[in-house]
């Protein structure tokens, strides 16, 4: 019988199946960070349990870490404590840790792929909802809560009810390959299917405009699957995937053998049945800007801030939410998106902080200066990204333009470290969530691509990047 890619990975990881109940799945890779793990390790200690497979478990610190000079002590005592607790837990339980001084430190979803911890066909979990990122490699990867982190540490397995399957096809070609990015594709998808559109499903992204994407772009797409409510997002691996991972530090020794197996098996069979399907035409996608307080509240850069009654299409709950969002965002319906002026620019996060994102953004600002009204910041996703970018001289381009060039971490995507918005500040951000207060209490977030953020930094307001000469 023909099966989807998801079903193949699912089937090959079943340890135990029950009638009318969840299955016990084996976990191939477990990524751990400082915020969602302390209580899990405590639980192990209390019950005198050990970590079953330390060789499949990797830890780093990313959410809390300052992005300023790493040779200085961490000022925030509570953050500092959480970081020390992770160090102690990794030491006590024998887990490999990429600590704040490691050349491999970075956002957990950036370092997984760049170290070859992420592998096609693998099951990957982490106590972070953006674990869906790793699906770009054809891995079944999803976020879990702390109780499940403890469960995976102790058993290397997870109980899970089988999600349904959701095919999202992005057909045709983008009209402008620089100005219309992977971020715009995924924001367009979420805008159309809604923040709960993928609930209970594993999405497989398919179609011409997915195949042509680089691995980094596919990561951007899969990363935001959770913003559509999905358990996970997947792209079938291909030669680009195999080449990306080849030679990475942690890929298994029998890599070539694995590649032959993956090439043969890791794709949905012709005629495989998906429970749901949605098609998008890439040539119709324009640069996107979010205007509200969830990622579905997004529109084209050429558009206007919508009127709640039109946006909600007759749903009273959504209409109320839109009114509230506009009030929070301090925006008036009918105003042009390009009239929205900005105080802050953030280029970073597990969505858009990889080398390619920084290269694309740097093209816009090279030899130019940011608007005197804005404060702009680049936070590379990992120490490795930072190093590679510096080798290309990107740090100088950004700094010369007036950007701050920071150390790696989650930073202002969620503002757990000192990088936050002040109340009322408005930010063009390459991150993934524009929830109320996400980047700082009272802060206002507009989600955009790196190139849109860079262009907005120069202008001090949003501009349509299709007007720029980007080649």
């Amino acid at each position, binding site marked *: 019988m023909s099966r989807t890619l998801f079903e193949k990975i699912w089937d090959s990881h079943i340890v*135990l199946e029950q009638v009318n109940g969840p299955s016990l799945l*084996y976990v191939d890779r477990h990524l751990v960070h400082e915020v969602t793990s*302390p209580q899990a390790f405590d639980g192990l200690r209390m019950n005198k349990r050990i970590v079953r497979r330390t060789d499949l478990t990797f830890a780093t610190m990313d959410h809390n870490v300052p992005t300023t000079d790493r040779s200085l002590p961490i000022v925030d005592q509570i953050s500092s404590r959480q970081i020390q607790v992770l160090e102690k837990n990794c030491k006590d339980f024998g887990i490999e840790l990429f600590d704040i001084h490691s050349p491999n430190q970075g956002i957990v979803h950036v370092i997984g792929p760049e170290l070859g911890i992420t592998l096609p066909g693998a099951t990957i979990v982490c106590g972070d909802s953006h674990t869906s990122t790793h699906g770009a490699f054809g891995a079944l990867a999803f976020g879990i809560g*702390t109780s499940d982190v403890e469960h995976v540490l102790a*058993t*290397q397995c997870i109980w899970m009810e089988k999600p349904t399957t959701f095919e999202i096809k992005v057909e045709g070609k983008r009209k402008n390959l620089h100005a219309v990015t992977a971020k715009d594709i995924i924001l367009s998808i979420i805008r159309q299917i809604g923040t*709960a559109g993928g609930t209970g499903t594993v999405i497989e992204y398919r179609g011409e405009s997915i195949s042509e994407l680089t691995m980094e772009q596919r990561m951007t797409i899969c990363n935001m699957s959770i913003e559509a409510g999905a358990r996970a997002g997947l792209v079938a691996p291909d030669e680009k995937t195999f080449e990306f991972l080849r030679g990475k530090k942690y890929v298994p020794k029998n890599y070539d053998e694995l590649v032959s197996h993956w090439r043969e098996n890791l794709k949905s069979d012709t005629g495989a049945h998906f429970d749901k399907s949605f098609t998008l035409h890439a040539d119709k996608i324009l640069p996107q800007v979010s205007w509200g307080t969830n990622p579905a509240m997004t529109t084209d850069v050429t558009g206007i801030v919508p009127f709640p009654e039109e946006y909600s299409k007759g749903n009273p709950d959504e209409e109320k939410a839109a009114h509230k969002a506009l009030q929070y965002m301090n925006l008036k319906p009918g105003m042009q998106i390009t009239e929205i002026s900005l105080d802050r620019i953030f280029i970073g996060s597990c969505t858009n902080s990889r080398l390619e994102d920084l290269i694309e953004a740097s093209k816009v600002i090279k030899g130019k200066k940011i608007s005197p009204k804005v404060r702009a910041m680049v936070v590379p996703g990992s120490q490795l990204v930072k190093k590679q970018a510096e080798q290309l001289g990107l740090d100088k381009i950004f700094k010369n333009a007036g950007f701050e060039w920071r150390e790696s971490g989650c930073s202002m995507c969620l503002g757990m470290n000192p990088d936050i918005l002040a109340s009322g500040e408005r930010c063009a951000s390459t991150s993934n969530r524009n929830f109320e207060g996400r980047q700082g209490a009272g802060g206002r977030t507009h989600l955009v691509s790196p190139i849109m953020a860079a262009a907005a930094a120069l202008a001090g307001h949003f501009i349509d990047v299709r007007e720029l000469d980007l080649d």
Partner: protein
Amino acid sequence: MEQFKKIKSIVTPLDKVNVDTDQIIPKQFLKLVQKTGFGQYLFYDWRFENGDKPREDFVLNDPKYYDSKILLTRDNFGCGSSREHAAWALLDYGFRVIIAPSFADIFYNNCFKNGVLPISLDSQSVEKLFNNSFEVEVDLQNQTITTGDMAIPFEIERHRKKTLLEGLDDIAVTLQYEDKITMYEKSKSKF
């Protein structure tokens, strides 16, 4: 985990869709390394202004609901971040039952791990509760919500019901299958 008994309480109506876990428990409170003490920070930015002054127009600040154990809300509750701190905060505050038309997956799962019962009801029944409810009784064993002369049945997966009613420790259950895990590692594991 504590066994789940019948819950009788006034219902706190939170009339919002897409309540994300960043609202349930803002990030500045995720730095604690225990599971307790999060209740005081529940819905922090909606509950307080300038850090400590209760906002009068927020439902949790209405004295009528101070002892409520049941939260009633709208679609897609708990979306966004996987932070289990959201479930810990609700529990620590005193909520044992959340009723909504739908929940986000990770949050839904996290609730059961902590003895919190999320009930998905059709929108019509949720609407009825928003309009009528004062005190209701939630009976997990019989899968009903009763208020006045209205009894609303609800669905729940059998294994989840069992977990709550018996207060089972997930890990202990799984470790009973350790031979199967070892067998998988020996024969099927590819990495």
